[in-house]
């Protein structure tokens, strides 16, 4: 078997355009689903059953459905229900946002549960307002529990964006596949794609390590 990486000189620019699409998809989905996940996490831990019950049922339903099915629903069903045409990228973002919101919502919920009961009692005894104490006391202490699984699920999501090819988003893997069909050079192309995913994961791990240092195990917020 001959091994010729020069194929990347020819097909690289086309494949890398898919990388930008993948990164845009990841950034868009994380930017939207992170605040929504915070809301879902809070709802899952809410005292009011009117918040907790629907959040729990929705979370259970969404997490039980394969993400590919959610993408298909976003691409094929939503346009019928809402009577509008969704671009494949918009549908992919919508589908991944729904899925990740509930996956990450559970991560936030678990992080909030990890904050000792005594902290909530101290907050209550001092009559501290909920929003402020959440921002200044509870979330900083929940962060060490939230960050590792959050980054881990984000890494899964980066790899999962390949599914968007199924609804016509020409992201990294889709373009790589097109290049393989055109060149019959699967080994060189897939090796390159694997390295690209590895670099993205390494960057996310670096973000995780930086975040863990910022919120160390005692919940200290570094200046």
């Amino acid at each position, binding site marked *: 078997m001959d091994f010729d990486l020069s194929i990347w000189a020819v097909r690289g620019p086309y494949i890398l355009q898919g990388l930008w699409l993948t990164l845009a998809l990841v950034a868009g989905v994380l930017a939207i689903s992170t605040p929504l996940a915070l809301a879902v996490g809070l709802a899952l831990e809410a005292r009011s059953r009117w918040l907790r019950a629907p959040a729990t049922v929705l979370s259970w339903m969404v997490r039980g459905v394969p993400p590919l099915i959610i993408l298909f629903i976003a691409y094929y069903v939503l346009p019928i229900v809402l009577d509008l045409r969704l671009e494949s990228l918009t549908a992919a973002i919508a589908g991944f946002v729904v899925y990740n919101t509930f996956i990450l919502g559970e991560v936030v919920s678990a992080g909030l549960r990890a904050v*000792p009961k*005594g*902290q909530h*009692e*101290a907050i*209550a*005894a*001092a*009559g*501290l*307002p*909920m929003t*402020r*104490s959440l921002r*200044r*006391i509870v979330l*900083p*202490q929940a962060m060490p529990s939230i960050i590792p699984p959050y980054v881990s699920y984000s890494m899964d999501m980066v790899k999962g964006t390949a599914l968007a090819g199924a609804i016509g988003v020409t992201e990294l893997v889709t373009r790589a596949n097109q290049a393989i069909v055109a060149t019959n050079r699967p080994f060189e192309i897939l090796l390159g794609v694997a390295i690209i995913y590895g670099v993205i994961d390494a960057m996310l791990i670096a973000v995780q390590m930086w975040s863990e240092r910022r*919120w160390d195990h*005692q*919940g*200290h*917020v570094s200046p």
Partner: protein
Amino acid sequence: MKDTCMTANPATPARAHDRPMLELVNLRKSFGNKTVLHGVDLKVPAGQVVSIIGASGSGKSTLLRCVNHLETPDAGSAVLIDGQRIGGPDPARVSRRDLRRRRVEIGMVFQHFNLFPNMTALENVMEAPLAHRRGTRAEIRDMAAGLLDRVGLADRMDHHPGKLSGGQQQRVAIARALAMTPKLMLFDEVTSALDPELVDDVLQVMRQLAEEGMTMLVVTHEMAFAEDVGDRVIFMADGAIHEDGTPAEVLRNPQQARTRSFLGRAMRAR
């Protein structure tokens, strides 16, 4: 001396005014089928230091936690702070906003300190006054620094709780509870989690507070503190007040066999 399970008159005369600073009326609390408080009545005049003693499970901590509604008392109970009732006939229906406003009047110090670990000692003390807008940031900072100085921690203001000893953390917790200038202070076994050599510094701060006229409800196993500093000692068993009187009366000359038995065990354990 009173030796009934219910109504307890103050063992010392009110120092400030006739209206009790704290009044508990028919305080009942159940957890599921288990009744923990059986309708406790208690009046505490302003400035009085009440030590609550009793075996584990006697209901003394639950009593304390019902005062600021960390545990919601059962329907029919009433908690009055300085004559103002918290909530209506059903304590469970008190609004969260009203509860927050009333809790500010009550300082609480916990057995395990419960300091906010992500904040320095100074930030811990400043947090509630800042949240309740009790002045400018500079004013609140000065006040908090003054409180930490008062509890002997002027040189530890910028330390996080993780860098402080248990005794120091507990003194920060006392300063934090005092930051909202409460009318009443609750102490829930605040020395139980401390190494013996750290207990005295905390008790000294509490002694100083008592001398300054703070109304205090102190759940404690420190009989010496109850005897030296307290104006009044209450012995609880099975969710009711069994003996109530001056420290000399309850600790030196208990009328009930249960009190004598408890004190005997407590003295042997010292």
